[in-house]
């Protein structure tokens, strides 16, 4: 038996669900987003983009230029023409080489929208043969090998070997507010107001691009209408563009994309091809897992190496196996670069392993539930990188709870009976599917140590102000960080304020990504609160300030002593903590129209500790809806290297009516180094739905291994199923 999770002390603020701090302003429409901001002398920006997926830019010509038009090309870049992130390969503006369609070439600015739109620009491009097929690409920007045990030994012990290939498509983040920034030229630098996730990423990029010292590049995040990873790296690009125009014109410049431009030009989820070869014993135990992961990086490196890293680290799923080999590669193609998107590689690889598990059960003729029970990770087991899991490893409790709540076994039997009749009558079919998954919180391996994030608390006369660069993008950052601080100080929530993320005011608490804000930044802030409490002693804030003057306490990320990571061999503790989850999804399938309707969803997820249960459940519901759509609806149609359906009328995202009723259960297996036991919750919910949906389709008789399984694809399968039946 695993040791029982320790019962934490009773809490008064953490674990309650107060209204979101910025909620009222958003509901009332008084929250101001980038496009709402005005500055005297504001110019509007426009981006001229390449039309071919690969080629050379030979030159450009411009029709009539309205008076007051500003033009920026690569030649105007004062610093290095590259977006600084992992590799300096992506230019801010094309100089000569074009590597993908919709690549930025020229920037225009004018104060009048119509005048700006009326400028006709002709690019002279010499097209070259583009690589649009990721399987054919031989250019890899990253390879990762994970080895555990001895693969041939594992296969030798197997009774059966099951192989399969699984693919997933692009997915668009589809934040409601499109990408947008305003750049304001200052006496000796520039200030950016932007819709973004990571102020310090933007600062780092602009420092290189503009050749300015960091203190002269000020980044301020304004209210942001969603990110989902899409505002992790791209804001560096658009902010660079606006800054170049602002510095050249000497006036503030606003650059806000419309939906089509946003969909055409910005990053998406990496398409994936994952192959599994698995050795299993007759009783279902896994003896060997050989996994090959291929991601389509697109035309530039952006964040692909780290997306690949998270992808391979989750590729074996939450399962125990002694002999494992995982090879991951990210290949370059001439399509717009793919990048960060909620889940960051894990949804792709866990789709593959969970659908593969279902096929293993089928091949062995055993119950898929039993197969998972037998192999699920338990406390004390090791992952593919050899990380030994602690008492908070909750794969089995998640599985059992989801099975119980959804009445999985009874429903499965009832559906099989129903389908036997429906196959004769031609009526709607049903299917029920399950997926077990996990998700590492925080940066991978040594990432958090390298980031060395800092957070601070400033004493105010009435309480404390939080100083972090972690951004509110709709997920509730401000509220939950305030709850953590209030709890530690023993104060009511109303005494805590949150400073706007402004690089001049707040320390670098790292990017708002990787399910790290609550667990990592929250814990640093909790320690700040501890120090503040100690400093205050029995004084009130007002007394302290009167006596000692201002007080700001700053703390830095502190690696748990037991954590070790070898980045060369990919061995050791890949993440500080893992959340676990199990989704059960029931579908109804119209065999004639091929419409698939998710009918019921049960989502059970262990997030260590729900700081704000309503917001946490909201993350789970939203991520689940997005994950179902990843499996069934959202299809990025690529034609000649560009998105052909870059419009919301053709790219189908689910509406509330498409979202099934969900039963959400939050389990709390606390993590010792997270604030009050919290792990991450932002990304995990999107890992489970796509395999659960596809396993439900499989239960109804449809063999799907590629998603999105849009109706046209399902229609073909239904036809062949009918053909086989007659």
């Amino acid at each position, binding site marked *: 038996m695993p040791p029982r999770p320790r019962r934490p002390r009773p809490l008064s603020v953490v674990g309650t669900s107060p209204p979101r701090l910025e909620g009222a302003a958003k509901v009332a429409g008084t929250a101001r987003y980038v496009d709402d901001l005005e500055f005297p002398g504001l110019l509007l920006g426009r981006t001229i983009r390449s039309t071919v997926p690969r080629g050379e830019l030979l030159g450009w010509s411009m029709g009539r230029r309205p008076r007051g038009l500003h033009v920026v090309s690569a030649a105007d870049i004062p610093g290095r023409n590259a977006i600084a992130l992992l590799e300096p390969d992506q230019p801010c503006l094309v100089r000569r080489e074009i590597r993908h369609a919709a690549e930025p070439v020229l920037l225009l600015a004018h104060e009048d929208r119509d005048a700006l739109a009326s400028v006709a620009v002709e690019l002279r491009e010499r097209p070259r043969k583009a690589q649009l097929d990721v399987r054919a690409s031989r250019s890899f920007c990253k390879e990762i090998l994970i080895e555990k045990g001895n693969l041939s030994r594992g296969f030798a012990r197997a009774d059966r070997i099951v192989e399969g290939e699984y693919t997933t498509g692009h997915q668009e983040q589809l934040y409601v507010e499109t990408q947008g920034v305003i750049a304001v030229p200052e006496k000796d630098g520039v200030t950016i107001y932007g819709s973004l996730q990571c102020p310090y990423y933007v600062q780092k990029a602009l420092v290189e691009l503009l050749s300015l010292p960091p203190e002269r590049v000020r980044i301020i995040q304004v209210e942001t209408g969603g990110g989902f990873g899409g505002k992790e790296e791209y804001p560096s690009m658009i902010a660079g563009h606006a800054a170049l125009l602002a510095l050249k014109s000497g006036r503030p410049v606003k650059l806000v994309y419309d939906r089509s431009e946003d969909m055409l030009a910005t990053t998406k989820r990496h398409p994936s091809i994952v192959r599994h070869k698995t050795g299993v014993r007759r009783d279902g135990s896994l003896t060997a897992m050989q996994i090959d992961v291929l991601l389509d990086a697109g035309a530039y490196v952006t964040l692909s190496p780290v997306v690949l890293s998270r992808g391979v680290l989750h590729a074996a799923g939450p399962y125990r196996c002694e002999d494992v080999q995982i090879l991951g590669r990210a290949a370059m193609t001439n399509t717009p670069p793919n990048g960060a998107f909620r889940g960051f590689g894990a949804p792709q690889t866990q789709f593959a392993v969970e659908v593969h598990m279902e096929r293993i059960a089928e091949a062995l003729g055993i119950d898929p539930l039993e197969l998972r029970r037998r192999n699920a990770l338990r406390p004390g087991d090791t992952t593919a990188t050899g990380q030994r899991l602690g008492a908070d490893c909750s794969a089995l409790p998640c599985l059992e709870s989801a099975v119980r709540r959804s009445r999985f076994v009874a429903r499965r039997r009832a559906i099989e009976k129903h389908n036997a009749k429906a196959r004769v009558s031609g009526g709607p079919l049903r299917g029920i599917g399950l997926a077990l998954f996990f998700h590492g919180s925080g940066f991978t391996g040594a990432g958090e140590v390298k980031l060395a994030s800092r957070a601070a608390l400033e004493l105010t006369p009435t309480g404390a102000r939080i100083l972090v660069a972690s951004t509110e993008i709709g997920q509730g950052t401000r509220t939950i960080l305030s709850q953590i601080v209030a709890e530690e100080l023993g104060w009511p929530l109303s005494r805590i304020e949150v400073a706007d993320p402004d690089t001049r005011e707040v320390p670098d608490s790292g990017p708002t990504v990787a399910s790290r804000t609550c667990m990592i930044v929250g814990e640093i802030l909790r320690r700040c609160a501890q120090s503040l409490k100690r400093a205050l002693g029995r004084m009130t804030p007002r007394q302290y300030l009167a006596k000692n003057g201002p007080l700001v306490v700053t703390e830095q990320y502190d690696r748990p002593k037991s954590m070790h990571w070898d980045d060369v061999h990919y061995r050791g503790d890949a993440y500080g903590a893992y959340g676990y989850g199990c989704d059960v999804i029931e579908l109804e399938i119209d065999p004639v*129209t091929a419409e698939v309707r998710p009918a019921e969803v049960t989502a059970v997820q262990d997030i260590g500790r729900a700081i704000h249960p309503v917001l946490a459940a909201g993350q789970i519901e939203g991520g689940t809806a997005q994950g179902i759509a990843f499996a069934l609806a959202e299809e990025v149609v690529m034609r000649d290297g560009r998105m052909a359906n870059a419009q919301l009328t053709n790219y189908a995202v689910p509406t509330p009516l*498409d979202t099934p009723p969900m039963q959400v259960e939050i389990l709390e297996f606390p993590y010792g180094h997270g604030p009050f036991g919290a792990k991450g919750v932002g990304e995990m919910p999107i890992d489970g739905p796509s395999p659960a949906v596809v396993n439900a389709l499989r239960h109804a008789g449809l063999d799907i291994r590629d998603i999105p399984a849009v109706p*046209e694809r399902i229609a073909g399968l239904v036809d062949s199923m009918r053909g086989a039946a007659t």
Partner: protein
Amino acid sequence: MKRFEFVEASSLAQAAKLAAQPNGAVRAGGIDLMDLQKEHLAEPDRVISIRRVPGAAEIREEGGALVIGPLVTLAQLASHPVALAKWKAVAVAAGEAASPQVRNQATVIGNLLQRPRCWYFRNELLQCARKGGPDCLSQEGENRYHAIFENKDCAIVHASNVSPAAMLFDGSVKTVKADGSRREIPLAKLFVKPEVDITKEHVLEAGEVVEALVLPAKAGGDHSSFLAAREKSAFDWPLFSLAVRLEMSGNVVKAAQIVFGAAAPTPLRREKAEAALVGKAIDEATARAAAALCFEDATPMTQNGYKVAMGTALTARAILAAV
């Protein structure tokens, strides 16, 4: 979007006069017009709103016909008790369109006159045949959402939910022109096939304003149905849609009308299947046989063959639902 002047007309005749001047556009709910403006597919210099025109938001019964004014919204029609009783398919079609937010703003007449959703047409960067370019780009391109009938020159599908249902009742529109003259155009003559003029969807002249949609009463109005298949449950146009009206005598069909919506560039009557239903009692088998007849002349494209199977099933269901 191009800058424009916004004026509010006090009467429909005045709106017609203003709209007839070069580059004017009438705006009712503004849902489609705004979209077209944002995508630079319509660039009016002057937008003439009719929202202040007195009495324009009324639904009346006149001599047995239902008369729908130019500011009547889809939501209003969808919940109108008389429409639901006697012009059932029309009310249902209005209630199935778009989303609750859109239905509260969008007008019924604007719905008839909306422009197609073809993704080549709606993409401002592309010159398709409908926008004066040389080719219909869907022929060799992405055509999963396109027409399965009459699709050789241009493969748009008719976008309106309301029009196939309104055609069941031999509906017509009454209009006023810039010179003050009035005419009545049956819906069967309102919509333009690509082979006649590929650049427009209806015969209204510049500045001609619709004053009302008139739906005569018909036997079997309560035996009428509208069905659509969509990818999403809201905020989406149909992949396929149709309306059916049956005049029954006991359990035998006396007369039938079947009109397809999102299947061809204009609403499409299916006379052969209508004739086949007459004199028959409706059961699964007759419904399926009639449905199959409807698709004999289908010419699916490279990616939309699925619409034939889907459409056949929906047609049979709509016939059964109309009984």
